[in-house]
């Protein structure tokens, strides 16, 4: 046997020894499970022995972050989790299934306690807000159908807001609210709107669900979270204006704002609807007026004028874009024109926003800019095309020289060679 083979054998032996030592150490430091029961594996730190008889609830609770933060079965339900003897387990301060009316107060025992919530950086005002909400007010009056904490967050399987599987994750909120506000039996009984069905048809829902725009508003964006309540008529422009700031600015600058407030007309909602808000449509500039105004009124004509301004500008921009596409096919240098057409489109978009003043002259201040940019581009490109066409006249000069050269060559060809 060579020296090398002997060395390899020694190495292998050393490795095997090291591995077995490692295994022994791991076995020594492993956490010792609660044993002494035939069902040891389902007796866990969070659920204690409750899970022996309530396996579904145990699994649900253990999926929640509560389980990791020492919130045990007994924290909410009381009783004794060290035994499976039903009398002892369900004795003492055992409450059984928590009564709906007491759920908010029970959750608030921890969630309104600043000292406890501080380490998690969680707010503690949810209970106070809930009491102010429509849900909380009705619950205080003894209405048992309204939402309590567990209706939205779940009972045992509560997940963090940031968890996409959570009931209160932004994309899940409409469905969570819709469990009651989209329940056709419930909304008929209580004479409330089927807000969920309306919301699903809205442009907001389209943005959220179809385009994945996480900033699109859900129910809570307008109604509040724990303090959920319908906004007052007077506050509607403020609520919508949180996102649609420019629209609100123009709306307040126009005559509609004061008159609508005077007559208690819900401002934005009057034209756009509330839950089923539509995408912005240009033709609504003219067609929406008749919702409130009589058909022959001079106010109705204002809408038609704004639409007219808009359409004229749009036509010019479209023409400019067509010319740019032609120039691109040549290809010519058009990057500058692409940027300017974008500028014109921005003016046009601003004109739509400015239409909230219902003053055609304000709209025209933007449509005129859009129009002039579109017309400038058309002028410049038409000029360039004309120049390109003119340069083709160079062909005439070219053919002149070709013909002259041909003449010379022909003469030279037919010349008699020198003797």
């Amino acid at each position, binding site marked *: 046997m060579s020296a090398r083979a002997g060395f390899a054998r020694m190495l292998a032996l050393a490795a095997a020894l090291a591995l077995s030592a490692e295994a022994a150490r791991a076995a020594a430091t492993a956490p010792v499970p609660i044993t002494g029961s035939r069902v040891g594996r389902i007796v866990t730190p969070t659920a204690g022995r409750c899970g022996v008889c309530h396996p579904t609830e145990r699994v649900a609770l253990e999926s929640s972050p509560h389980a990791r933060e020492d919130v045990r079965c007994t924290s909410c339900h009381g009783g004794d989790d060290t035994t499976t003897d039903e009398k002892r387990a369900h004795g003492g301060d055992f409450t059984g299934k928590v009564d709906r009316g007491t759920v908010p107060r029970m959750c608030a025992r921890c969630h309104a306690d600043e000292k406890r919530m501080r380490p998690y950086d969680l707010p503690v005002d949810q209970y106070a807000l809930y009491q102010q909400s429509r849900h909380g007010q009705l619950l205080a009056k003894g209405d048992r159908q309204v939402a309590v904490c567990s209706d939205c967050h779940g009972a045992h399987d509560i997940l963090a807001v940031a968890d996409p599987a959570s009931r209160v994750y932004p994309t899940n909120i409409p469905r969570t609210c819709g469990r009651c506000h989209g329940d056709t039996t419930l909304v008929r009984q209580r004479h409330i709107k089927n807000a969920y069905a309306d919301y699903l048809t809205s442009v907001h829902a389209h943005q959220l669900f179809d385009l994945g725009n996480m900033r699109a508003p859900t129910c809570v964006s307008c109604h509040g979270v724990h303090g959920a309540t319908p906004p007052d008529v007077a506050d509607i422009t403020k609520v919508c204006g949180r996102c649609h700031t420019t629209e609100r600015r123009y709306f307040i600058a126009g005559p509609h704002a004061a008159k609508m407030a005077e007559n208690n007309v819900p401002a934005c909602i009057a034209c756009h609807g509330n839950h089923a808000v539509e995408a912005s449509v240009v033709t609504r500039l003219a067609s929406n007026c008749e919702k409130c105004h009589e058909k022959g009124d001079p106010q109705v004509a204002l809408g038609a004028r704004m639409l007219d301004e808009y359409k004229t500008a749009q036509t010019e921009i479209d023409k400019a874009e067509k010319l740019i596409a032609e120039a691109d096919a040549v*290809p010519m240098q058009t990057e500058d024109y692409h940027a300017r057409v974008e500028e014109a489109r921005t003016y046009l978009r601003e004109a739509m926003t400015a239409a909230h003043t219902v003053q055609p002259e304000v709209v025209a201040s933007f449509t005129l800019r859009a129009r002039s940019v579109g017309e400038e581009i058309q002028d410049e490109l038409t000029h360039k095309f004309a120049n390109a066409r003119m340069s083709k006249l160079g062909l005439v000069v*070219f053919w002149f020289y*070709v013909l002259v050269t041909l003449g010379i060559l022909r003469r030279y060809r037919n010349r008699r060679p020198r003797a």
Partner: protein
Amino acid sequence: MSTTTQDPQGGPQKPLPWHWAAVAWLEQRINLTEIFSILTSFGIVYTPVDTRRPLREAMAEIGATPLVSYARWPQVLGLLTALLFALEAVTGVLLAFYYHPTGEGAYASTEGIVRDIPLGWFIHQMHDWGAYLLIAVVVLRVVRMFWHRLYLAPREVLWVSAVMLMWVVLQLDFTGRLLPYDVTSYWSAMRGLEIVCSQPVVGPFISFVLGGHVITENVLLRSYVLHVVVLPLLYLIGIYVTFGTMRRIGLSVPAEGGDPANATTWRKHTLDFVIFQLLLFAGLVTLATLLPFRFHGPADPYSTPPGTHPAWYLLSAYTIVQYLPGPGWIAGLLLLLAGLSVPIVPLWSARNPQRLSDTRLRQGAIALFAVWCVLTLVGAFVVRK
């Protein structure tokens, strides 16, 4: 050799003009006549050149030899294959100075050539129009040779080389069409590749050479290499074979040598050549200026624009592949057999006139051409579902 020449009358020696002096200086170091004789391979000089004599004497002899009227209109197509190829080579080299054969660079660099580089548009359009004319020329040449029965002995090699030139030009067009990498070129190349790949045996081989069944950056690069190196070399070989054969077996319609009205000289012939070249160039310049080709934006492999067709010469094959029932390889086999029969059937008919008479052959060719036209029209106007 001295730098002066002897006066025939034995008078005083006259110094040579400076250019002939330079030629004489060079001639002591290199055989210029041998280099000059290369021209005979490209249809510019038809008379045999005696490479042992100095250039001046050789040229004087060529100039003095009366020629039968060489290379008149019937032969113009053969000359054009060489002339247009020279034009394509020159413009192609200029384009290659700026072209990037990469996925990102191809369209951008083509656009840059046409838009930003002085006279780049001109070079590009000349290359495009030259290619169109070249295809027309090689196809017409094959048609003419078929119709005038120029495949009969001893012209079989000429016939085969003409068909090969046509094939190479179509390949050049197929690969060159892809290079701008804009929407149209990308998708027409894609359709073309579908047709090519449907052929049994040949299809897998071509897709192996090109690097895939679909157009990718690798296929682009290989198309580029085939387009600028491999296929032009094949084409040059074809031209050499054409003119080499021509010098040995003579022109197709030789003028009767005894007719002095048809007699010409090398000087006249060369000037005709220059005049013809000038006219061709002027025509191409006019086409390139008045009817330039357009661009339709960079290629997007993820969206097929509606109404994409392969190149026009593949439209009939496209129709067959599209609408022939049964498995795809049947259509491919049909195309392959049709392609192979073009050079072979006329040669076979010439050897076996009792099996396939000349009249029958012509009738068949006309019928085939009519079918081809109909299929092309169907392929062009019936939109794929």
